[in-house]
């Protein structure tokens, strides 16, 4: 082995490891020069806010990716939670706490059903969660005969729904914390950051997270090392369901109504963020830090392009390009995908 060869390998290693981070900072640098007002606390907060809900969902789906699964139902869990929150407050006239509990419960139950379908009914993960997605998209329309939920709406039986979104609930979407500048950081961004740190710590530093990675890499070996593999898999789907329902709560609080048409892009954006995360720091595997960076990356790119007057309809195309590039980074360059 010549030293030149070693240097090449090292350079390649560094390119894989730091390539995406460098790209992110390069992008920020470019927009800082090219787009007026890109570098400001408000702009940064806006970027985080724009990816907060997507990011929360992406962190959840990361857990299922870690155990070698996939959860396609996250988007519909989030919108179901949003509709449930609106229904609980507007139609049933309950307070914010009941609404939040109801949403989280939906997340847990859907996660358990997904896990049960996959682990005990042996339905392949993609198909089970695809079925669940359809089921939920339909289910959330039934109580209101397919209409959005807002105060004053007429119910199917002719009565009028008089409940309102509680102030406490709305503050989840509208309150901003002071951070050097008054009223700067929205609750959703705080939630995103807290959940990101939590899931990152869980996956990287606890024995449960470590075993989830083992299950994802070699299920049989994990089982023969004494791990209750089925339980770990089900837990992963419960985590994913709960995170998605938290995303739904934030969405409901932001909109202030149960909007049947919102949340269409949540699933794809979240999955893209998690998959882009594979490429961050050359991990070549699902990881919480990468997912967060992936979400921010997409946010920065879209915010910058918007400020440079790129039309809105190009957004999905750009996200797709980023995702494909990230996947090439992960699977071709690092050479770990072809094991």
């Amino acid at each position, binding site marked *: 082995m010549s030293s030149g060869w070693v240097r090449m390998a090292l350079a390649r290693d560094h390119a894989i490891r730091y390539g995406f981070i460098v790209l992110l900072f390069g992008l920020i640098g470019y927009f800082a020069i090219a787009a007026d007002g890109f570098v400001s606390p408000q702009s940064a907060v806006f970027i985080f806010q724009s990816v907060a809900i997507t990011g929360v969902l992406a962190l959840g789906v990361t857990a299922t990716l870690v155990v070698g699964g996939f959860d396609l139902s996250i988007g519909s869990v989030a919108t179901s939670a949003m509709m449930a929150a609106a229904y609980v407050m507007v139609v049933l006239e309950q307070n914010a706490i009941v609404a939040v509990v109801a949403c989280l419960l939906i997340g847990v139950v859907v996660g358990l059903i997904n896990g049960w379908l996959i682990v005990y009914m042996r339905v392949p993960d993609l198909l089970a969660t695809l079925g669940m997605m359809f089921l939920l998209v339909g289910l959330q329309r039934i109580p209101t005969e397919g209409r959005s939920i807002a105060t004053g709406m007429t119910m199917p039986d002719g009565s009028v729904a008089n409940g309102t979104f509680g102030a406490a609930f709305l503050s989840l979407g509208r309150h901003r914390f002071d951070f050097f500048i008054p009223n700067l950081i929205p609750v959703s961004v705080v939630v995103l950051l807290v959940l990101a740190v939590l899931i990152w710590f869980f996956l990287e530093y606890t024995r449960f997270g470590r075993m989830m990675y083992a299950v994802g890499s070699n299920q049989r070996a994990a089982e*023969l*090392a004494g791990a209750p593999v089925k339980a770990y898999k089900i837990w992963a789907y419960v985590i994913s369901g709960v995170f998605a329902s938290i995303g739904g709560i934030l969405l409901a609080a932001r909109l202030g109504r149960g909007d049947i048409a919102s949340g269409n892009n949540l699933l794809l954006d979240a999955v893209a963020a998690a998959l882009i995360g594979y490429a961050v720091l050359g991990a070549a595997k699902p990881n919480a830090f990468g997912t967060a960076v992936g979400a921010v990356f997409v946010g920065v790119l879209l915010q910058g392009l918007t400020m440079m007057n790129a039309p809105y309809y190009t957004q999905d195309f750009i996200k797709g390009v980023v995702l494909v590039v990230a996947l090439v980074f992960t699977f071709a360059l690092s050479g770990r995908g072809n094991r």
Partner: protein
Amino acid sequence: MGNDAVFRVDGLRKSFGHIEVLGGVSLDLHAGEVTVLMGANGAGKSTLVKIISGVYERGGGTMSLAGQNFAPQDFAPKTPAEAIRAGVVTVHQNINDGVVADLDVATNLTLDRLSGSGAPTLFNPGRVRREAKAVADRMGLAIDLKARISDLSLADRQMVAIARAMAHQPKVLILDEPTSSLSSAEADRLFALLDRLREHGVAILYISHRMSDIRRLADRIVSMRDGVISGVFDRKPLDYEGAVNAMLGRKIHLDRIVARNSARPVLTIDRLRIAEGSRPISLTLGDGEVVAITGLVGVGKTALAETLFGVRKPLTGTMVLNGKAYAPGSTGEAIAAGVFLVAKDRSENGIVGDFNIQENISLPFHRRMSRLGVLKRRIERATARRQIGELGIVCRSEKDEMSALSGGNQQKVMVARWMSQAARLFILDEPFQGVDISARRDIAAKLRASANGRATLLFVTELDEALETADRILVMSEQTIVGEHRNADIDLERLLAEVAGGPLHSAALSADR
């Protein structure tokens, strides 16, 4: 029985990288004769079959096949399809590789015609059924042609795969362990079919470890060991023990080990049955003792290991560990009770590919290395470093990826994993599989040196490995223990007879012939 070989292999060689797998194999197959090929894991059987059937290219030597006019022609298929066209058909071990599960029997029987060049573009169900019926009749196959393959039993699928192979009217038929997933009644149907093919003058190469199959079918036995033919047996009556002997090899160094005795029992197994219809197993393993259970592939060694480790439940019987009843419901319970298993086939059952050496070693013991669920990485790293030193694992650091290690070192990591904590019963299933000789010596020496305080139980197919490592050797056959030997003055003739099926058993078999 014809004397001129239909198929002849001469001095066949094959290497993968710098490892020679076949070192000059010569073999004849005759028309209307069943030649059984025996060999332990890694002897080179599969490589030989894959070269003959066109999956691998040969590294050297010649092959010839008698052509239509019975003049020998050079035979060097580049693809499996070419081999089939030339008249050499292989039925591989995995039955489902030979059939398409979602299609019906008729389509499966005529599949090659549908996909071959010159096949009609349009699918004609009537014609397919007529052709399939012709094939089935020729083979005496009594299966509903409209049935879907996935609704059939394994034996029926096997029959279909063979019938489909026979539709090419081959001169040579190769079967790679065809009975490994069949019941004995199902196997009987297969044998009847093979008898018919033999009468039709097909030369059959039959690869198997099962002595009962071999006794039933063989006209000739060829033993393989370490990439060469180690024995050919064709004089009647066939010398089965000699064949097993040639396959396992007997280069024994008698000064290897001093067999120890143990007084304090660690594990007692009482009338344990691991398979329907098998005789019960009873045995006691003592503290400080290294016991090897040997036997051919498929006699229930792994099933017994998995029963002890809580992967599967015994049909009947009880176990006592450390004086307490032991009936693990999961691998987790077994580990908590101090029963550890180094599973066979490390890449499948042991190694977590995404983890480095350190993380692979700590895998089963996370609970003991964490507080409030948080892993103590310092302890994890210290344990890994200690174990790397203990077993002499060759690596740059404990952070190395597993894929960077040689097979022997990977296996050492697996052993290091389970030796990182104290066991009461330490089970190793085929621990020397795919391991070079020096790593094998290291592991065996380590096992013996650290044997005190636990019972050590090895499952090995290769007799040499048992002789080199164990104080006591038990022989397994037909899902039960059939013999016991202290590794001091072993009666090898008796041991080999037990491995080959036992005098009692063969008497019973010849009685019902």
